[in-house]
Structures are given as C-alpha cells and as structure tokens.
C-alpha cells in the first residue's frame, strides 16, 4: 500500500469539462504535460513525479471505468452519474459544468404533461426519465432514446416532450421550445472507486482536499 510508484489513475470527461478540470489540477500543482494539447492522439498522460495519470473518455464511459477500478477517480457530470447509476463514491461537487436537467417541449405540451395521459419522451437519459416519470410523477411514459440533437424530436413529431440538460436555454428558444419542468440541478462531480477509496485512502483524500482548496481560491 505504501508503494508510491502505483499511479492514481484519473478519468476525465472529454471536452469542456476536461479542460476546466486540468486547469484545476494545474492550480493544485499537478500538471498533465500534453493532455491540454488538442492535436495530440495520445490517450493517456502521466505525471510520473506526482504518481498520477490522466485519460480522456466519453462521458457515459467515465463511471464505468471508475466502477471497474480501471480508473481510481473520475470527473463527470451529475447527469451521467444519475443515468449510469453505478455504485461509486461521489466525494466532491466541483461547481462548474452547471446546468439543469429539464423536461422541455412546446408550450402546448404542458397540458398533455399534466393530463395524466401517456406522454412520449425523447431523451439521452432513459433511466433518469423512467425514474422521474414513474417515481416522482407516477405517470406512464413512452421513452425514446436518442443520442444527440434531442430538441429535434418534438419539432418533427417524434415525441411530445424531451428530457435534457439545459444551460442557457437558447437552443430551446431558437427552436420554439421551453422548459416545462425542472428535474434537478447538475454540475461536475468527482467520483471515486469504492476499492481505491479504501486501498489508497491517504493519497486520494489528499488529492480531493487539494482540489477542494483550489476551488475556494
């Protein structure tokens, strides 16, 4: 357990979240030589001196890497954590990547939504949608899983409403849609594998504390 050579592996969500997170690590004095370089084709970046390595993965895969212990730590949006619903320790709210999980649609769909009739929902988040409509609203829904441009679904008549994350709402407005209901707030979270938390407790706790302090600056 004292073997300092065993690196702590951190999975980051590709894209904006990764950039912000690497900046934060930089603030903690942990640079990730090369990871910020947009043109690189390397998949994994090691900071040997600190015993830390980073890799970038698609959002929904980050909880999977952490759950199986292929990464000790992951940085991922709460939307993905809720959707994947794996047993992970969620230890820190990074506060950025802030948005809201919402049910959206044309204003005319509001009545249907409250009528108790079966509603068609298009979403990237079928598990969250199922949980929300069944448990919280006790409503029967038909869920259609899509992988992007969810706003399109009600416009072309694929679904009545959508469930998606909303940041500013401008895409919605431009397409004549509006937020009908808010489900929950979302932001970037640090998750930890349950075994790593025990076997590497000291190093991981220190790292999380450093991040927490860096957030306050």
């Amino acid at each position, binding site marked *: 357990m004292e073997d300092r050579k*065993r690196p702590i592996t951190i999975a980051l969500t590709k894209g904006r979240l990764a950039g912000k997170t690497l900046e934060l690590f930089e603030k903690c004095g942990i640079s990730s030589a090369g990871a910020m370089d947009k043109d690189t084709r390397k998949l994994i970046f090691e900071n040997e001196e600190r015993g830390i390595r980073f890799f970038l993965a698609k959002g929904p895969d980050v909880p999977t890497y952490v759950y199986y212990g292929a990464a000790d730590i992951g940085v991922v949006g709460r939307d993905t954590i809720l959707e994947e619903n794996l047993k992970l320790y969620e*230890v820190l709210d990074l506060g950025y990547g802030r948005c809201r999980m919402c049910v959206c649609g044309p204003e005319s769909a509001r009545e249907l939504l409250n009528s108790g009739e079966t509603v068609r929902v298009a979403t990237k988040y079928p598990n969250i949608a199922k949980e929300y409509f069944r448990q919280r609203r006790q409503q029967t829904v038909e869920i259609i899983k899509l992988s992007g441009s969810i706003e399109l679904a009600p416009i072309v008549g694929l679904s009545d409403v959508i469930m998606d994350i909303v940041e500013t709402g401008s895409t919605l407005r431009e397409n004549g849609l509006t937020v009908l209901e808010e489900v929950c707030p979302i932001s970037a979270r640090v998750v*930890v594998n349950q075994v790593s938390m025990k076997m590497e407790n000291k190093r991981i706790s220190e790292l999380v504390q450093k991040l927490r302090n860096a957030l306050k600056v």
Partner: protein
Amino acid sequence: MPSIRTIHTPDGFRDLYGKVRKEKIQLMGRLEDVFASYGYEDIETPTVEYFDVFASDIGTTPSNELYKFFDRDGNTLVLRPDFTPSIARAAAMHLPEEAFPVRLSYSGSTFVNAAEYQGRLKESTQMGVELIGDGSADADAEILSMTADALKASGLSEFQVSVGQVEYFKGIMEAAEVSPDRIEEIRQEISRKSGFVLGELLAEERIDPAIARVLERLPGLFGDAAVLEEAWALAPCARARAAVEHLKKIHALLSERGLERFIGYDFGLLTKYNYYTGIIFSAFTYGTGEPVARGGRYDRLLGHFGREEPAVGFGIYIDQLRNALARQAQKQPGHPLKG
C-alpha cells in the same frame, strides 16, 4: 456447421477447463482447509428454492434480477442468488435446539440475472460460512479472522477488510427522530460518501445541528483503529456508543491474533438490505474494482424461518478473487495494477 445456440454458452455463463479450472479447484481447496481448521462443517442446499426464501424483505437481490420459473403447481421458484437465506432456512428447519451454536460452510454456484454488457458473470461461484446461534463479539471476531485467514490462504498479501456497524447509524437516526423514508435517503447519501448532498438533505430535514454534524462526518469516518475513538467521541446516544464499544471489543480480539493490519473500520458502510443488524464488512484488494468478500451479522433472518437465532457469516466471491490474484500476478515491479 452447428448453430450458434448449440455451440456457444449464453451471455454470462462459461466453460472452465485446463489450467484455469485446475487453479480454481486449488484455490477453493485452500479456502476449504481454512474453513475446516476453524471447525466448520459443510452443508449442501438446493440450487432451486421457493421465491419466498429470497423475497425482498429477506434477500439481497432485487426481484427483477432473480432467475424465476414455476413448478407444476404454479409456485414460483428461483435459482439461488446467494447462500445465506438458504443456509438460514436449512438450519431453522433441520437442527434441534441443542445443536446451536452451529458452524456451517458452503460452496457452489449463485445466479444473478444482471443487466447485459457489464462484463459480469451471471453464474458465479461463492464459498462462505455462517456461525448461527452465537450473538457475541467473539463470534464476530471469529468470522472476521476467518475472512482474513482465508484471503491470506488464497495468496493475497495486500487486502483490507473494512468493518462497519449498522447499529451506530441506527442509533443516530433514533436520536435524531427522522422519519423512515428520510432515513433511506440519508443512508444512500452516506453510503455514496457524498457529504455535500447530505448537508443539504440534513438542513432540509431540520435535524438537530449537533447530530447533523455527526452525520456529515460519517462518510469520512473510516480508517484504522484511531477512528473508533473519534466515533466514540461523536456518538450522540447510548445505542451508538454501544456500537463503538462492540467494535472495540472485536478490535482487541483481532489484535490478539495479529490481524489488525488487515482490518479497517468504516462507520459510513451501510447497506439497503435491512437484514444486517450488527457488524457489516467488505474485503478489498488491488486488481478488482469490487469487493472480493462480504459479510455481516443478521440476527433476525432466522426468525423469518420460524426460529430466533443470532447469526453472522461471510461469503467469498471466488471469480472476483481469482481475477484479482491473476491481475496481481501479472504485475511487473513498479507497474500499475490496474486491469
């Protein structure tokens, strides 16, 4: 060409042969020896049981993950998802009063119809023991030291058995007078080690600030024996203090056997299965992201089968353990152990 259905095994099921099979048998033999050296006697229970044996108030596996089918009379049957309820049923059914305390060991397949594409086996091998009819701290210590001895015998040199005590949390909840559905929400946040959501939840529920401070500390309240002192100092009521006392007693017993370096304590280790009544533990090692063994005390389980006896036990996930051993053996000096 034979069709796919005749030559392939279904997803989550597999053939084991040659070297791998031999290694598995050897590993299981080493564990059997440990169980026998503690005086445990093997018991065989059927692979198929009535659904009621694993119903939601008793079992640890959600109903939709059980393999279910019907007998000719229309009763629902299941393939056992784990052993403990079966062993409890058998002990309650067959053993006379004077047989207790009884030490039983088991070995065999368990079946969980988990979601696809998780790289999970649906049939996996479990070995374990149950000590029924002894509610003392000595019994808990015996089970914990067996867990450590069995993992040592398997060939692991670095592992940690993380021990919790559900009475500590239950005591705090009682002192805080929280409603039952809120208890479940609070429990979830603590077992996710998610202090920040917990804080919001506690504020919303208007929990006494002194007690809320204790609860907020729970996700981080784990580590070596020093954490027992902190837990004692934090305990807001007699029930929680008794839970810490109990762990201290166990710690003294384990230290006598020289096992303290394998044992840690975690007051945030909680479970949604309400059958655990005292200690609860998981064993971790490098090379696998999930525990290689789990166990705990379940003093009310036998009551479901018509006999009140305290009981404690653990099960080792043989396939997980084998994975961990294989990955640790592959390790080159200075290289990471990640799979």
